[in-house]
């Protein structure tokens, strides 16, 4: 059986990231864009956790840094939650005012 | 005890203000001219010594022999505990029109819709004159005396 290595996780992460990137760039609906961004966050998290588990165990100043990647993943998760909440709040606010959430038509700042 | 305002007295009260309004008086009701209905009712409601603030009931009767519909309004003053019955005759039975009293007594809303539904009296100025009980495609007005259920 072919062993699963760090690279497997990284390729998976890259695929998820690129799909998310496409979604974030190409979609016409703000909610769909948000979904793409969430996908990218997840991809990054997968990579981080994989790094933390496959990397060499080491200690810095007596503390294990084995799980640095996981700690970072938790921070990213926090930020993603904050981003989702704020993003959706903004989408609601815009929808209320403009009755649309198509970013192409939200060009109020352009002239 | 609710005092039934004698129709003759009521007619006198109305005549004092609107000489042309009263068409006839009998033992039960005061019959008003259709054109004067709204302003008489407005007066009855707003004049503090009368204060007929409560429309008890509004309905219609089909007098097919004499070729008219008669609308009956029972009006009451909660403040003075008095009651008077007003009547209005329509002009013929084909597409009769009567002014609506919704603006004076809101309770007329459903009752006028009911009359429209069952008698086919149109109320000018009614905000939402649709059939109340029967479906919109129903043809004919069931409470008219010449309505034949199977012939619709």
């Amino acid at each position: 059986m072919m062993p699963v290595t760090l690279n497997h996780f990284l390729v998976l992460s890259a695929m998820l990231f690129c799909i998310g990137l496409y979604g974030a760039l190409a979609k016409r609906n703000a909610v769909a864009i948000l979904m793409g961004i969430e996908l990218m966050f997840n991809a990054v998290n997968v990579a981080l956790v994989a790094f933390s588990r496959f990397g060499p165990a080491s200690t810095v100043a007596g503390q294990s840094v084995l799980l640095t990647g996981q700690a970072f993943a938790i921070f990213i998760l926090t930020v993603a939650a904050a981003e989702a909440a704020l993003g959706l709040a903004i989408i609601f606010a815009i929808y209320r005012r403009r009755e649309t959430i198509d970013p192409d038509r939200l060009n109020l700042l352009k002239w | 005890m609710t005092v039934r305002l004698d129709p003759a007295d009521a007619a006198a009260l109305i005549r004092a203000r609107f000489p042309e309004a009263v068409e006839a008086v009998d033992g039960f009701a005061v019959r008003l001219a259709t054109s004067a209905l709204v302003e008489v009712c407005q007066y009855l409601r707003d004049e503090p010594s009368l204060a007929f603030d409560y429309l008890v009931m509004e309905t219609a009767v089909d007098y097919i022999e004499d070729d008219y519909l008669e609308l009956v309004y029972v009006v009451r003053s909660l403040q003075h505990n008095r009651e008077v019955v007003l009547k209005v005759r329509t002009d013929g039975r084909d597409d009769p029109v009567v002014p609506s009293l919704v603006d004076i007594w809101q309770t007329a809303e459903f009752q006028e819709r009911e009359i429209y539904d069952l008698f086919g009296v149109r109320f000018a100025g009614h905000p939402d004159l649709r059939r109340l009980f029967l479906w919109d495609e129903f043809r004919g007005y069931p409470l008219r005396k010449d309505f034949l259920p199977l012939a619709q």
Partner: protein
Amino acid sequence: MDFVAFYYQYIWNLSSMWGSVLAWLQSQTGLPGWAIYLVFGFGGALGAFLWVAISNIILVFGERRLLGRFQIRFGPNRVGPNGTLQLIADALKSVGKELVIPAGADKPIYVLGPIVAFIPAMMGFAVFTFGPTMSPVTMDIGVLYFQAVTSLTAFAAFMAGWSSNNKFALFGAMRAVAQFVSYEIPLVLAVISVVLVAGTMNTLTIANQQTIVYALVLPIALFVFTIASIAEANRTPMDIVEAESEIVAGYHTEYGGMAFIMFYAAEYTHALAFGAMLNVLFLGGWKLFWLDQVLPPWLLFILKSYFVFFILIWMRATFPRLRIDQLMSLGWKVLVPLALVSLVLTSAGMLVPGLPLLAVAIFQWVAAGLIILAVLSRLPRRTNREEDMRARRLAAQAAMTARTAVSAQS
């Protein structure tokens, strides 16, 4: 007697019995380790599922009979002895029904809805502690796992609600999202108090550590957890998601037959899961005075969980429903602050050197007493029936006299 004692020890500890069975199986068949592992896993899951299935039957029947009693009537008592076969009859009838998919429904999601409803409620059972060493899965993150998987029920609600192409269902779905997400916060905050005191998220350790049940140590957290889990389990008086007097049946309005049974069973499974979790977190799982020396722990655990469920039935038979905005403000303005108070007090108590548990208990009870006092003093004076009636009558009489005077003048 040795014979009896030998078997009693197996009955006492089902997991050791299961382990012996597996060991015997391996020695007899020589299966590889992973196959035994699979058998072990599926067997455990099957056991939990059986328990849930039997419990559902017992609880649904018990609830119907009990509600009947509460309502001065008999409840189902015709089919079978004392009505015990009523549920089987109902289930057979439901199985025989056609599964109607409404026109315009989002078919795949519509079909998935009831299945998704059942899975998360069922998954939570993995971490329950049926005895000192008996837990289907021992996880370091047991409590977190339970909260995480049960939070997925919101999905079932809005998958069903959205896909049904029915406005009542959509209402139910929206309410479900609002309610479940809001009540997750006080629920988790209340659990954190327990985790702080226990120093672990492992359910087995938490239950084992409760020499004094945490219900006595953490009354505020217990209160918050109870209320929030009623809301999460979607039971009256907080079942606005499927409030039958307003939105017919909420998100599962369009489901009939077997699909409806799935939702129904999921609801009871969910409620049972929260009852059992309350038992684990606050009532010490299988512990019950000296009885745990006599009876097998799993039996006590099950009975205690049923007792918690009985309290849910009792509440159902007592309270009418809240309105959605009142429910929301109860969650955000009452339960979340209470849970935070409990959290702060618990952490403060943990900082006290020596006796942290006693310190926590003292802090919590003092705070609980203060809160109750504050609430009592702020409560509007209850209406007195004589006064209420006299006020209403006097008002009428006064107005009536005034009117007679007026009409006498005119």
